[in-house]
């Protein structure tokens, strides 16, 4: 029964999204702009407003959350339902969980983060890099973003060559480690991992910081941002920017994924 209700809601929702901007080139469709979500802050406000809809019943609350879903989660461009049974079930559960636990999103929450795909400049090369950023409270009503992770294959410092010859000989100590200057020469630097203890895994964020600190690396620009939210019990969801000329545009929920409770911890 609930599934029929949700599908009916989807239909109403889709029909609202269907109209496009057909006006003179110099005028704006203000109604259309008001329905779009150009800022994550606005997404959060609208998400939290589902609480205000409770007084009008579950339908109103579900509708408030539905408007935050990217339509492509459910429908194709022709308005045909594409969501699998599993996806439909996930969406229904997701909305119910939000409703049951009166979830609200706050900037200071520790259970969300941003994933920023960046273009970086390493010496004369353009490379891709992913940064993870979290919000932190730094004073009463004072927050900031902090970089908390980095991801890129090249940050793992894979050696250019790996073979049994690339080791520090057991007698090096007797020579006061005479080979250290050679293995750390600029032209040999890309094999340095061969000489490192296995007990210490490479931490890409530390590598990144060192490269930035020495002036060898800088970030050119951010290509894409995805926000990950873990506030809804049993699920995580992502929010991405959908730039298109329709009501269902801007920062919208792009993925709803069940998460076992153990993973959430």
């Amino acid at each position: 029964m609930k599934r029929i209700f949700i599908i009916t809601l989807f239909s109403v929702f889709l029909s609202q999204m269907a109209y496009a901007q057909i006006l003179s080139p110099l005028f704006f469709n203000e109604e259309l702009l008001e329905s779009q979500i150009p800022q994550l802050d606005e997404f959060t406000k609208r998400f939290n407003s589902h609480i205000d809809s409770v007084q009008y019943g579950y339908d109103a609350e579900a509708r408030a959350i539905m408007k935050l879903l990217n339509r492509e989660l459910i429908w194709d461009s022709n308005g045909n339902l594409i969501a699998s049974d599993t996806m439909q079930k996930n969406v229904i559960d997701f909305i119910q969980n939000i409703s049951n636990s009166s979830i609200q999103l706050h900037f200071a929450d520790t259970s969300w983060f941003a994933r920023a795909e960046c273009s970086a400049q390493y010496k004369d090369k353009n490379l891709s890099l992913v940064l993870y950023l979290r919000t932190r409270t730094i004073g009463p009503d004072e927050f900031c973003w902090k970089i908390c992770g980095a991801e890129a294959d090249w940050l793992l410092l894979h050696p250019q060559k790996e073979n049994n010859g690339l080791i520090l000989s057991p007698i090096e100590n007797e020579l006061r480690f005479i080979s250290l200057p050679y293995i750390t020469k600029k032209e040999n630097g890309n094999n340095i991992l061969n000489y490192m203890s296995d007990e210490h895994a490479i931490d890409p964020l530390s590598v990144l910081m060192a490269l930035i600190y020495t002036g060898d690396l800088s970030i050119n620009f951010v290509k894409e941002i995805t926000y990950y939210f873990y506030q809804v019990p049993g699920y995580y969801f992502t929010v991405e920017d959908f730039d298109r000329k329709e009501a269902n545009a801007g920062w919208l929920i792009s993925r709803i994924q069940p998460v076992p409770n153990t993973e959430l911890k």
Partner: protein
Amino acid sequence: MKKFFYLFACLLIMNIFPSAFAQQPTQSDFEAIHAEVGHMIERFERNVAYIGSKNSGETGKDTYIKSTLRLFIGDGKEYTDSYGNTWPAPHMQVSSTRTTTPINRTIPDYLNRLRGLTYAKVQITSADHYTLTNIYKVGDHYEAVATIYQKFCGYYSDGLRRYCDVTQKSIRVYIERITEYEGTRWKIRFGDIDVIDTQKQ
């Protein structure tokens, strides 16, 4: 006795310089800030339309460029914050579906390019609707982001062909509490602008 003297001195200083001890803005402060940001956006949009228009005189454009730069922190130039950190001039980052790398321009450069457009006729309009984020405390001041929409149409001399686009501009807004003899007011300045330019018409 000395303790009381210091306490009295501190209270006196707090009274004379209340802005040094940042108080949280009240609801009426937020309303005043929203209204002021709205006025600033209107002024910015009006100035941009004037600078881009072929009907505007060159002297007028000079005046409007100067007036627009005054809307920005550091008057659109490199500036030093109250902690002594130097920051580059506010800039505009333009992303487009046609290019993979965003284009970065300082605000004076953007305004000068706007002034020098070679179209026979230029029309720039703005949507009434704009969005302002929550206002966040950042060190000794507050910041927010205002998102506005602008349409640009440049017509070629044959009057038939035209280039039009729609941009979504997200503007960093610096909000500073100024305490004067008459009372407290909010000084608003714009900073960097992130422009998404995808909707060709």
